[in-house]
Every structure is written in structure tokens, then in C-alpha cells.
């Protein structure tokens, strides 16, 4: 419990980014779908418990970047679907830019050592 509580902000932020990007790319999805997609795209390199996606989804919804509604899944089951909101889209853009900037800077620092 406490280990999850102490999850670093960076990791939280990364997860948020991944979820938003996934929703942008794939359109509205349910929680399991998002988790699977992230696993696949990251080549299972990202070692995370699937369950952690739900608190992240709650957080994103509270912030107003995604919204949810109940619908029917591809195998006719009741599921909750999440979709990106306009402000979520804006947030994604901003975070992407941030990420690019940060990784460029780190690259520069690392390369300069050589």
C-alpha cells in the first residue's frame, strides 16, 4: 500500500501521458483496453501492475482531461469507456512538448560527456 502511495510524480506523470496518448490515437476505450495497449506499445518493458491504471484514470477524469460513460464492449458486455476531452487534448500537446524539451536537454548533457 505504502509503496504505491509513494509512487514518484515522474511515474505518475508518465502514466498520465501514456493514457492520454492512447486515447488520442485509439479513440474511446475501456480501462482494460488502455492497459493492454500500453503494455503492447511499450513492448512489455514497462513493468507495472495493470490495476494502477484505474487511480490514474480517476485522476485524469477529476482534472477534466478525460470523460467516461458506460457503454457496451466489443463482446457485448457492459463496460466503462473513457475519451479525451478538448482540454485533455490541449494538455497532451503541452506535455508532449515538455517531454521533448526535457529529453533533448538530457541528451545534450549525456552526449557532452563524451
Amino acid at each position, binding site marked *: *500500500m505504502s509503496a*504505491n*502511495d509513494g509512487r514518484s510524480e515522474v511515474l505518475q506523470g508518465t502514466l498520465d501521458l501514456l493514457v492520454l496518448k492512447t486515447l488520442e490515437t485509439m479513440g474511446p476505450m*475501456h*480501462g*482494460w483496453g488502455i*492497459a*493492454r495497449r500500453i503494455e503492447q506499445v511499450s513492448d512489455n518493458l514497462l513493468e507495472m*501492475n*495493470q*490495476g*494502477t491504471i*484505474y*487511480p490514474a484514470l*480517476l*485522476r485524469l477524469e*477529476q*482534472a*477534466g482531461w478525460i470523460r467516461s460513460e458506460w457503454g457496451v*464492449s466489443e463482446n457485448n*458486455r*457492459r*463496460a*466503462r469507456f473513457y475519451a479525451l476531452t478538448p482540454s485533455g487534448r490541449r494538455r497532451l500537446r503541452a506535455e508532449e512538448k515538455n517531454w521533448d524539451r526535457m529529453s533533448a536537454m538530457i541528451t545534450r548533457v549525456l552526449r557532452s560527456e563524451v
Partner: protein
Amino acid sequence: MHRLRILLKRIRALFQDDRLDAALDEELRFHLEMETERLVRGGMTPDAARLQARRSFGGVEQVKEIYRDRRGLPAVVTFARDLAHAVRTLRRHPGYTAAAVLSLALGIGANTAVFSLLDAFVLEPLPYPEPEQLVRVFEAGRFGGRFTWGAVAAPVLRDWRERSRAFTAIGAFVPGSVNLRGGDGAVRVAATFVEPEVFQALGVPPLQGRLFLPENTKPGLERVVILSHALWQDRFGGRQDVIGQTIRIDAWDHTIIGVMPARFEFPPRAGADLWLPNLMTTWDFTDRGLHRLSVLARLKPGVSLAAARDDMAGVSRELEAMHPNSRVAWLMPLHGDTVRRTALVLVVLAATVGFVLLLACANVAHMVLARALARRHEFAVRLALGASRWRIMRLLLAEGFLLALAGGLVGLASCRWVLDALLSLPANPLPAGVAVSISWPVLGYCALGSALTALGISLVPAWRLSGQKLQADLAEAVPSARSRARHGNRLITIEVALSVALVIGAGMLVRSLRALADLDLGFRPENVLTMRVSLPPGRYPDVPRLHAFYDRLLERLAGLAGVEAVGLNNLLPIQMTYTNMDFTVEGLPNDRPGYEPFAEHRTVNHDFFRAMRIPIISGRGFTAEENRAGSGVIVVSKRAADMYWPGQDPVGRRMAYGTQPKPDRWLTIIGVAGDIKSAGVGQPPQAILYAPYRDFDFPIQSVSIIVRTTAAPASAADAIRRAVRELEPDLALYWISTMEQVISQSTAGTRFLTVLLASFSILAVALAIVGVYGVMSYVVGQRHREIGVRVAMGASRRDVLRFVLGHMMRQALIGIAIGIVSSISLRQMMRPYVIGIGPVDIPSQAGAAAVILLAALAASAVPAYRALRVDPIEALRHE
């Protein structure tokens, strides 16, 4: 804004718990099913797939927990739960809960009551617009090495008005009283004589009519009066057409020109019933040496007190150049000047009840700790299960919160009753007529006090109990004896220190009262009846007529049966006259600044010294024949002689009024009278000039008559009243009381404080006894086994006693030392009321120490007895 929206969402979620939980369950179930199916499709068996799905998910319950925490406001929910739990716990021990709540209620209630007194009397702003711009202006100087300030002479006030640029208005007022003619005879009411500038400075518009104009102060024109709201209601039933009506004041008809609004009072906190224009006398136009006026001024907007003081310093310098040896102007804020004395009494009171509350808190804190220690297993288990230290502290804080809340509510409810009791005490020195109510600031103070109390009683136990040490303690059956003992002893020290300080304070005040009773006032107050008589200027418009009446009155009274001597004085001894006179000593140049002679001035008849039994130390008093205009004799007091004729006998020497006396106005000193405590019982004797009333041509409309009787003074009152009525049918005697009553009235403040401090220190001792009993009981209970072991190993009864009481005594002695030290600062606060007692007062301090020690021992008696009864065999079996 963003955060606020999230917060609102979370609050909303609190109320939808069940529905949201069901939704989450469904969502997670869906997730697990999908993952399971995927794994099955990949080739796993259904059971293995289900297991693997759960494993990749992570802990389902954990996720739900995190989710829920994020969704709602967990802090609120758990706090509510803690409160409910605390309520249940407290209900299970009604005796303990009741005792704790009552102790706290007492402390909080008393503190709230005293604070509402402070709020009403000291903190409440004066009822004028922008009251912080109002100042009192005095004439002041360094006299005999000390800086003192006092009344103002009229010509000086006029100069200030002309020259100063700091004030919008500056004016004089003189409080007094007048005869008001009513339907059923005359009644004495409080009146203040004011210049029109005073109302201008105050800035409160009248409810009806208008305020005084400069014409109103010119003699010979129509006489006018302004009524107070209360008088208007009483006398005229609040009639709307009262303006223009006349009422008879001091045998003259006065036209009512205005009525003031209900909340207005002047002088502040001592309101008069009506206001009259201040009529100046001929003396006021010329004599710079007769200081008798009180002066009020309003600073110009934007002018600070410091700037005004600078301005007036400049003015004083200009005046000094023209009139050498003048006094300087001195400004004080009106509010501070008004509340000074009351503030002192109330601050001492506040400190006292503060101590009592601390004591109550200490007691309750110990109770909480003792019970919490009894539950240490429960806490240790919780800690082991993963509860954070904070959660354990929260449980205890919730209990403390509830106790303080209950105590606060009960205290608040009983506050009104406490206030009424305080205000109805006979020796109440607080100004009358001020409404004391439980206002918002008071409620806020009560809430703050309760909150601090809650923290105080639960913080220490909570901190101690939630520590990591607790898990180690679980291993023992009994927590480490030394740590427990240490905590209990700290408590004993605190309780002893607080009660000792209060008892010493009470002791000092009691001894002050005794000292006051034995004090030598310089005269003999027994068998003396005093009264005042006031002659209406209408029938006695000039000095010769006034003097003629006084002659007749004195002769008449002296002839009554049972009367030994009759004295006359402008004010009674121990009542300080606000008026003082500059004078010149013959042969002594008047150019030593800071030592210009001035003295209290009293006009008396020849028999005054005999009536008051004031000894004549040197020379003689004046005879009846010398009591005439132009006799040129005067008697000075011993203090005046010591100050202005040091080392010589002033008898035979000469002095004159004023700083630049005319050659034919020299007076010869014919006697030196013994000192009297003219400024009040607790004050040192003042320098006094006694002039025969016929030789002093300032019109004195009111005098005090002193009648020394052979038998009990009260019995002569009727005869005197009759005699006066025969002389002057419309005249009313007022303020008739014996000299002893007057003296006791003047010590009201000390008596008030003494009663209260004594009561509270008794309460404090009671609380301390309860506290010590609680601690000792608990300690003996906890060390049951230890005592059994010692007895089994051969300890005698004396050894057991020494073991049990030893710690207690040591801590009590430390507490006594601390208490004595803090009593010194308590005494500093009470200085004006503690008369004749120094900061180190052995009888009070030793007495207090003895009382508290005895109390502590008494409190420990039962626990000690229980310790002696410990059966070693049974104790060793005890777990």
C-alpha cells in the same frame, strides 16, 4: 480554480459512496474477465488464467483503497469515524467523562467570563467617531525628580488653543454634580461642565436639538442644558417636544437645547446625566497657577500622536519664554487614560483564571494519559497492523476534541451566570452601567480556548503513546516504570507550581488588606460622619454669601448635641483634589526648574484639624478670628515643609500663591500639620496648603462637612439633616456616610481582587488535590508488583512510604520553587493593589508552600495507604 473544482468533485463523491463503489466493482470485474479470457485464448487453463490475471493486476483491494482515497476526502471520513469511536469510548466511562468535562467547563467558563469583562471594559472602543484621534492634554513637568501630569490652568488652555496647529478642537471639562429639582424634591445628579469645543471634539451629533455654542458660556445670558438619553427617558418619558422646555438646576431655570443619543457617554465610562456649559470664573482668566481643568482634544485628520506631541512641545517652549517656569503640555490617548485602572484589575483576573484552566487541563491530560496507557495493547496492535503514528494520535485527539468541545459548551452556558456573580460582588471596582454581553469576539475567544485545551490535553498522551517505543513496551507486561513515573511527576510539579502561585497571590492581597486596615492615615477616622453640601449659584452667586452660609452652618452644627467638632474642607481627606496651586517661597528664587513649588490646596475652617484629629507638629492651627478675609495666615503639611523648607521650620516664614506674586499678597505660615494620606490609602502623603476659607476668594460651591461625634456617628445624621434644612429648606445634603465607609470604599479594588483571588486559589488547591490524588493512585496501581517485590525482600513500612512518596515530594518541592518565582511576576502585575507588601513576602510564600505540601500529602494519603496494604504474594502473582 482547478483545485477547487477537484475538491468539489471529491466532496460530492463522499455522498455517493455506495453507488460509486458498485460501479468500481463492476469495472474491475470486467477488467479481470477480459484479461482472463485473453490468457485462456493464449492457451492457459481457466484457473491458471484467473490467477495470472489477478497477479498482473496487482492487489485488487489495494487498488480499490487507493482509488477510494483519491475519490473522496478520506481525512473527513476517517475523522468522522474517529469521532464516533471517541463518543462510544467516552460513554463507556461516564464518571471519568463527567469529571473531565466539569473541570474543563470550569476553566473555560471562567476564562470566557473574564474575557467578556475585558472586552466590555477595556477592548471596546469608546462611543465616538474615530476615537483613536481623541487625546487628553495635561500640564506636566518633572517635580522632585519624577515626571507627573495633572490639571490645566485656564489661561494656559487659551494659549494652547491659539498657538497649536495639531487639533481640530480642544476644550475643557469639569465633572461635578448638581441639584435637579423634580416633582418630589431635589435629587443630586452627575453633571459635567463642558466647553463647546469638547462636544465639537467628540463629534457625536445630538439626537435632538443642538450642541453648545460659544455664546452659551457667557454669563448673564439664557442658561442652557443638554440632557443624556437616560435622563430624557427617566424624566420626560422620551417626549418628542422636550427641546425648549425648562428644568430647574441648582435653583435656576435652564432651557433644554439638546438630547444626546443612547450610546453616548461623557466622560467616557463614567457618563454624566446632563451637560452644562463651562462657565469660567475671574480666577480662570488671569491665574496661570490655579490648575483645575481637564482638557480633551481631537487630533486633526492625518496628525499622529507623535506629531501632536512635537507640536505641543513647541508651543510649550514658546509659552516658557513668556512665562518662566511653566509646565509643559503632555498628551495621552483618551482610551488608554480611561481604561488604565480597570485594565489592571482585569488582567490580574485573566492571569488567575488562566492558571486555573491550566490546572484543569493538566488534570484532564493526566486522566487521558492514564486511560490511554490502559489501552496500550490496542494501540500496539493497531501499529503492528500498519496504522501510522498519525492515525493513533488522531484517535486520542478526537477524544480530547470531544472533551474540550463539551467542556467549552458547558462553560459557555454557565458563563453568563459567572459574569452576573462577578459583577454583583459588593466591592466591584468596575465602572457601573457598562453592558457586558457574550459577543462574537467572546465566542471566538471561547472557541479558541477550547481548541487549545483540546490540543493541550491530548497532545502529550497522543505523542507518547504512538511512538515506536510502544511496540517495545508491548513485550513487558508493565510499561517502563521510570518513564511512567517521570510523566506523572511532571504533572505534580505543574499542579503544585500553579496552585502555589495563586495561593501566594491571594495571601499577599489578604495581607495587604490587613495592612490597609492598620495603616496610619494621618487622622482618626472613627466616629466621624461626612457629607457634602452644594450651594446653588442662583442663590449664592458670590463669595461673601457663600462664606456667610458656611459660617452659619458650621456654627449651627457645632451647637448640636453629641457633636464634638465640625470641620469643613473642599474635599475629604484621602480624596485627592485634582486642583493644585503653584506658589512661591519667600527668599527662595523660583528659577530651579523641576522644583517649582506646588501643592494640593485645601480650604478649611479653624476646627478642621481638631475634627479630623490631625496633629499640629509645629506652630499652631488658626483660630476662629483668623478665619477672615485678609488674615494672611496659612498652615502647611509636613511633606510640604520637608520639600520646600528643607532643614528649617517654616513657621514664621512667608509664601504667596502664583509664581509672580504681588507684594501685598504674602501669607505667613503659622503651623505645620501632620501628613495625611490625601491621595488615597495606598499613596504617599502629598504636600498640602491649608487656607482658612474666608481668606481664599475662589468661589467653592460644594464642600465636605466633617462632624466628629461623641457617640456613633450614624445617629447624628438625622439631627444634622434637620439643622441644615432649617437653615436652607431647599438644600440637599448628599454623600452622607461615615469616614470609615469612605475609606473602605476607596479600597474596593483591593478587596475585589482579594475575594476573587482567594476563591480561585481555593479552587486551584482543590484541583491540585484531585490531580495529585489521581497521579499517586495511578502510580501506586502501576507499581503494585514492584512494591510487592520490595516488601517480599524485606522493606519496612517506612521504606514503602518513602518509595511511594519520595518522588512526589521531590517534584512537589520543585513545583513550589517554580510557584514562588512566578508569584513575583504576579505581584508585579498587581502592584497598585498590593499595598505595603514587597515582592519577597515570606509569610505568604512560606504559608502557601506549607498549605500546598499538606494538600499534596493529604491527596497522597489514600494511595499511600493502599501501597502499605500490598500483599507481596498476591502482587508477585499479579500480572
